[in-house]
């Protein structure tokens, strides 16, 4: 391993230049943060690469970019028509979430301490959310988690500076089971296929618990846990075909879900069993007519084709579709939008209280705690976790390929009130389901 002659002089000069460039960059940054008075810097962390990028990360980025551009022009409808956040221009700093929790903790510190952002909105992966929440708390900086699903964040700990502006994953499966019950779907036997990691395992146990309440006679057949990112489901599809259950439940998402559907459809399993998916609106556009008709799907909220027809939603849906060349917004774009609108509402509420100054993290936290605001996906209410965890309206529907419009449409949509599918503030999700949904308010389905 003796080293060959190395052009060390040139390299050193290069290293020197790189150092100088780095120094210049740092100085430039320092200068730009000096005039941060008129701008509000928001760090946005979302998957730009990796398996979750196509389904969630990039749509979330597009949603954020669309909304921030509109807000900075003051072009959003009332009550969001003030420019930026309370008159301050919004300056987004977008960071890739890919790379694991260690990297996220480091990057979050960099955003707060090096880039001097005023708030961070981000995180799709539950593992990342769990890892970063205590860091923001320790640094006393404002953090909004916008998408991750695990109920553990505010059920296992309490925070002052950390919020989640969308409902956690419990409502996805409770609403799914309620929908099946309401439509009298025959579910005497059911099989399940979920990824073998936290999201899949948690979704599976929520669904099983909800089924035990609503379908106490039902028996579970196949219970499959392929590994995350498996891509090949031949064995699992054979097992599902053999089980021949009334219902096949799955919490697969993204590329895994597409692969499962593409590989399962030719073998007819979805004709013999009713397919039920907890989060699938993000695959409707990529799959198109290959999406099996009559599939019961959720979208983790009343999003996309299942969203309510309000002026705010019409503005968002049409504006986003136009900006993205006809691709309509789905789950992740809605979720980042409701997070940013919540942040806007909190900033403006805090500024009204402090005489128009840029709010401190403490003032922001006080303003957002327990707040309610309208979003394209419906009313967001910070009701759980001492006012740090949102609940929201949920929707479930059935897919159908519309040949005339050349797109999958969703029919038979049923919306569930937030308090019908979410636990009350004083209960953990799993306990609430197992106790038979005490305190659930389902009187107004509002179909």
């Amino acid at each position, binding site marked *: 391993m003796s080293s060959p002659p190395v052009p060390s002089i040139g390299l050193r000069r290069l290293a020197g230049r790189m150092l100088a460039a780095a120094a210049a960059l740092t100085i430039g940054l320092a200068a730009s943060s000096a005039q941060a008075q008129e701008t509000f810097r928001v760090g946005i962390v979302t998957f730009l690469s990796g398996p979750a990028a196509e389904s969630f990360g990039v749509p979330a980025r597009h949603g954020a970019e669309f909304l921030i551009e509109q807000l900075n022009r003051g072009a959003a409808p009332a009550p969001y028509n003030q420019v930026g956040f309370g008159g301050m221009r919004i300056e987004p700093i977008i960071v890739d979430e890919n790379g*694991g929790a260690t990297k996220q903790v*480091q990057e979050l510190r960099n955003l707060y301490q090096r880039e001097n952002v005023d708030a961070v909105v981000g995180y799709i992966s539950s593992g990342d959310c769990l890892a970063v*929440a*205590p860091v923001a708390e320790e640094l006393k900086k404002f953090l909004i988690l916008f998408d991750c699903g695990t109920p553990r964040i505010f059920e296992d700990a309490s925070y002052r500076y950390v919020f989640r502006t969308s409902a956690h994953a419990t409502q996805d499966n409770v609403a799914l089971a309620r929908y099946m019950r309401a439509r009298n779907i025959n579910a005497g036997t059911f099989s399940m296929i979920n990824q073998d990691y936290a999201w899949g*395992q948690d979704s599976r146990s929520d669904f099983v618990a909800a089924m035990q309440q609503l379908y106490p006679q039902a028996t579970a057949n196949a219970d499959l846990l392929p590994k995350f990112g498996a891509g090949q489901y031949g064995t699992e599809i054979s097992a599902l075909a053999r089980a021949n259950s009334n219902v096949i439940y799955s919490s697969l998402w993204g590329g895994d879900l597409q692969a499962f559907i593409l590989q399962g459809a030719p073998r007819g399993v979805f004709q013999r069993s009713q397919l039920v998916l907890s989060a699938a609106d993000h695959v409707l556009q990529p799959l198109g007519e290959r999406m099996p008709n009559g599939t019961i799907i959720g979208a983790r909220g009343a999003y996309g084709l299942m969203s309510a027809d309000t002026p705010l939603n019409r503005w968002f849906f049409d504006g986003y579709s136009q900006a993205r060349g006809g691709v309509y917004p789905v789950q992740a774009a809605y979720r980042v939008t409701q997070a940013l609108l919540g942040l806007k509402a909190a900033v403006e509420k805090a500024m009204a209280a402090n005489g128009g100054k840029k709010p401190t993290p403490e003032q922001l936290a006080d303003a957002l705690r327990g707040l309610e605001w309208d979003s394209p996906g419906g009313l967001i209410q910070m009701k759980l976790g001492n006012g740090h965890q949102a609940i929201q309206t949920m929707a479930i529907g059935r897919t159908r390929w519309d040949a005339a419009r050349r797109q999958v449409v969703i029919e038979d949509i049923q919306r569930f009130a937030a308090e019908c599918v979410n636990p009350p503030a004083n209960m953990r999700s799993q306990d609430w389901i197992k106790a038979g949904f005490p305190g659930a308010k389902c009187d107004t389905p509002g179909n």
Partner: protein
Amino acid sequence: MSRTVLVLVAAGLMAALLLIGLALPRWLLFLVTLAASHGIVSVGILVIMRGGLVSFGQGLVFAIGGYAAALSFTQLGITDVIVLILIGTAAAALVGAAVGPLLARYTGIFFGMLTLALSMVAYGVLIKSPAVGGSDGFNIPRGTLFGVRLEGAGGDYALYALAILVTGIAATAVALHTRSARGLMTRAIHGNGLRVEYLGTSVQSVMAINFTIAAALGGLGGALTIVALGHIEPTFAFWTQSGEFVFVAILAGSHSVTAVFIASLALELVRSFSNLYFPNTWQMALGLFLLAIILFLPAGIGSLWAGRRKASPSSGGETP
């Protein structure tokens, strides 16, 4: 460099870094803390690599050290970070001592694959263990040092100082070891293992001990990481994590222990800034950086200073 000089230089370097730390911004303190705690794992790889083997499974001991320390915190209520680091190091060393003799029977790609397999088994088990948080892992609150809770700017500096001192002392010990008779034997094994056997030394036992040392260093790095990070998850044992450790070792080259820390720091800095300035192509920026190092410094960053001195045939040891 004589041993006394080496120890003096190391002590001077650590003192200088502690002073510099007083002037560093907090984000950089944290970045250096993590770079040091990852770097020490790669130092472990260096110990094995000097014998001509590469472990692709250091994530295993990294995770064991991390989980042992984290569980001691959450389950046993031990909050002192120095005790936690000792527990992590000891746990990983124990595992290293148990599997080391088995692994030492293999050479080349078989050794690498076996270590990789072991770490992936650990990963699989951790993913399926909801009791320790499954794939999401779990959080560890900030620990204490001599009864004082490590928080705020002072806490960040204390962790930085701890990381510099602990990894500095461990790395100095490794540097001394590589200059000892047993340490030099490792180089001889790299040159010609068969000849070493004929000279009356057990290659297996040397490599088993090397593996145990590497495991202890891995556990040390893991424990230090979770103390600073406050979170642990199964990806600690995933092959990409192990690969990163190998990468830092290759980046540094096998000439110098200091180079490992420089390589680790460089990797963290490049990743951090490319992530910010090229959010869509940061992996590519990272790749180009690594490619540049391989092209222009094939013997590693350490060859910038250590390689030239070692170039004389008397101390090279590579030629059989």
